[in-house]
């Protein structure tokens, strides 16, 4: 009797802990929306999202250049990072000798753990001057941001894709090899297609990471709030807009930064839900 009561009590306690944990997401949503929504109402949703001018001192809050900035830098990171990441995953799952794998895995883990500002700094002292001297432009550019972000999303893509490839039933590979395929044919025409949904989810999560990164890209993007015309132009992203101006913003200006946060939040939630949906469908 007494034990039964204790069991009930502990279940309730665990449930209460779980419910308070998840209320975090509600709390975050509510507070950011409350702060950001009024200015969107004032400026108008269309003018806020498609407005071309960001001039807080003149009361102009258009974030279209930042949306383009985020999209272009993220696209660049995906183009550079995803092929390398998938190769890395295939390498770890299929080709790496045990000794190499035991070096590679912790290295990827370290790559994931290093503060993002360190990557930004490295980009600033290496990538930026390299681009300026060899390709022209100010160096602080979409290209520099894409390179730094491509490196930063590698751990996400490599670890998740590797797990997906390793999780496939052995028979897939063995069957393919038994049919006389080479190792690469088995990977390319059997294993990768079978692990496709997991790899896509990895890429979507990588996109989310690239889109959400702030401090590293502040250091290498140049942060000019205009529409870029080439990958050598500086840009400002949604995240860097918040990161740079939050320190001194007040009033409408601060609200507009929260509104930028809402747009970022919505994009990231769509990406998250897509990734969850893809992995669950399996």
């Amino acid at each position, binding site marked *: 009797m007494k034990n039964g009561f204790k069991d009930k009590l502990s279940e309730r*306690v665990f449930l209460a802990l779980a*419910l308070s944990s998840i209320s975090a997401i509600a709390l975050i949503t509510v507070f950011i929306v409350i702060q950001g929504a009024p200015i969107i109402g004032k400026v108008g949703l269309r003018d806020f999202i498609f407005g071309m001018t960001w001039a807080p001192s003149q009361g102009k809050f258009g974030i279209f250049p930042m949306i383009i900035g985020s999209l272009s830098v993220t696209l660049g990171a995906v183009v550079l990072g995803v092929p390398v990441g998938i190769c890395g995953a295939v*390498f770890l799952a299929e080709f790496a000798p045990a000794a190499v794998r035991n070096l*590679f895995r912790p290295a990827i883990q370290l790559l994931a753990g290093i503060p*993002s500002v360190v990557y930004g700094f490295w980009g600033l002292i290496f990538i930026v001057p390299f681009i300026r001297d060899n390709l022209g432009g100010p160096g602080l550019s979409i290209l520099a941001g894409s390179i730094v972000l491509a490196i930063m999303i590698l751990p996400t893509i490599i670890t998740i894709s590797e797990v997906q490839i390793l999780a496939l039933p052995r028979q897939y590979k063995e069957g393919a090899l038994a049919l006389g395929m080479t190792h690469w044919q088995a990977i390319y025409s059997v294993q990768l297609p079978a692990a496709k949904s997991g790899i896509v989810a990895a890429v979507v999560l990588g996109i989310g990471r690239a889109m959400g990164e702030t401090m590293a890209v502040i250091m290498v993007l140049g942060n000019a709030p205009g529409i870029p015309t080439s990958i050598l132009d500086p840009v400002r992203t949604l995240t860097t807009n918040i*990161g740079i101006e939050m320190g001194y913003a007040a009033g409408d200006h601060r609200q507009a930064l929260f509104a930028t946060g809402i747009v970022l939040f919505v994009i990231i939630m769509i990406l998250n839900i897509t990734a969850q949906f893809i992995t669950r469908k399996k």
Partner: protein
Amino acid sequence: MKISARTSEKIAKTLIWTAAVFVLAVLMFIILYILVKGLPVINWGFLTQVPRSMGREGGVSSTIVGTLMVTSVAVLIAAPFGIGTAFYLAEYTKGGFITRVIRFSAESLAGIPSIVYGLFGFIFFVIYLDLGWSVLSGGLTLAFMILPTIIRTSEEAIRSVPKIYREVSFSLSATKTQTIFKVVLPSALRGIANGIILSIGRCIAETAAVMLTAGSALRMSRSLFDPTRTMAVHFYILAVEGISMENAYGTAALLIIIIFLINVVANTLVNRFVR
């Protein structure tokens, strides 16, 4: 022209090896470059002196203390909630609506960018709860941020405890609560500790969220209500404002060494855990 299976095998293998070597080389290059420039800066004085003239001179002791304080608050708050949630997910639910909501929220929380945590922490802790830029605001914000990591790693650890342990415990007429606290928790402890250590690493590495909530004061913090500056924020400010490249390298090297040690400890725990 059709490439033979053998040739394409060779090409693919070469490409994949190249990609892997490239990834390792880039990582090594970044780390070694920072260490070569930064290690000579680190000495006893660098670790124990407070920064002087904005960080141009002196050491980084107050930022080490700030990092420790903010991280401790985050972990002490997040761990009970995260581990409790993990136990609920792994031991009590049988699927169903609540489980789906919890899992969905935890996964969504994991994807939210740190700058959004920073915005939230700023408006909720700094302004609304009137805690100001402080160790407490920063730590609480980071607690939100590391919660999903602790939930996921703890749940995995709890699920990897063999079913037979629980069955034996029940057959000895232990209650569910006794089984969880006396059998499952001790067996899952290494895995849970691993998740917490990784979360500590995330707190130490974080910049955006702490900068907006803990501030960037260089004075040594004496209480939870004082503003503070963590090592990562210090490094960022030194580098971006060009205050002192030398001290920036030193701080970065210190951060890399700490993250490296954290990974080593975490891996040792997991490897023994898997056995």
